[in-house]
């Protein structure tokens, strides 16, 4: 092979390398924008504004929801908290927290001993695949939570246009 051929091969090689490394740079720039609904919050970021250092345990809460949600703008969700719901020991609040939505706190339910059962269900909007947190505050100030991953094929944050 002559020198010219080697040079061309080198050029082609560097071109290929540039092509491969390009998405890496682009990825970094896209990330640098920090789209609010694109970033995933850590568990502490989601929970600590509400819990504020109180005791928190991962038990007594169950989430019933589809594992795979076709449409993010309507995902049925049921939260069950094991509680006697008496005057002394009941659930006062149930929080639904989202990892990816622009608004983290999707809903707050206020419950009391008159409810009889600490079960609430609703339909939420989800901006993509994420881990939900259902957080329950008990009357003694402690918190219980449960995490669940829901795969969303179509985000709720899509325009009609």
């Amino acid at each position, binding site marked *: 092979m002559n020198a010219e051929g080697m040079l061309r091969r080198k050029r082609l090689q560097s071109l290929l390398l540039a092509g491969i490394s390009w998405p890496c740079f682009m990825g970094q720039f896209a990330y640098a924008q920090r789209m609010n*609904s694109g970033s995933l919050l850590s568990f502490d970021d989601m929970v600590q504004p509400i819990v504020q250092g109180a005791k928190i345990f991962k038990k007594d809460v169950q989430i019933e929801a589809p594992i795979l949600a076709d449409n993010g*703008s*309507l*995902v049925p969700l*049921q939260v069950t908290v094991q509680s006697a719901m008496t005057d002394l020991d009941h659930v006062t609040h149930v929080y*639904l927290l*989202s990892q990816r*939505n*622009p*608004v983290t*706190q*999707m*809903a*707050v*339910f*206020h*419950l*009391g001993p*008159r*409810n*009889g*059962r600490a*079960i*609430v*269900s*609703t*339909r*939420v*909007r*989800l901006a993509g695949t994420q881990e939900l947190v259902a957080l329950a505050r008990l009357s003694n100030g402690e918190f219980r939570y449960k995490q669940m991953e829901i795969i969303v094929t179509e985000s*709720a*944050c*899509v*325009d*009609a*246009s």
Partner: protein
Amino acid sequence: MNTARMQWPEPVRTGEVVKVRVLVQHPMDTGYLQDLTGKVVPRNIIRLLTCHLGQQEVFRVEPSSGLSANPFFEFYVRTTVTAEFKLEWIDDKGQKGNHFQIFNVS
């Protein structure tokens, strides 16, 4: 204008825990989406929805844009006397809505 519906299994016996279902007709615009002409639809969501049984508050929700359009809620309630269920809500535009229904206990 009937924009809300409430439903529970009849008849209700004294002291029984009953599942109540509430459906409110509301667009719940998030404030992030555009309409067909490209204009951003201003945020209009229900800020607060309360449920009173007689004088007692039994259920209260503070929704955000994270709840779907035409929000649907399910909760449980236990009562011993016949009373009126009073559902009230207020949205970002300041529009209030309400719905009354008699809760018969036999």
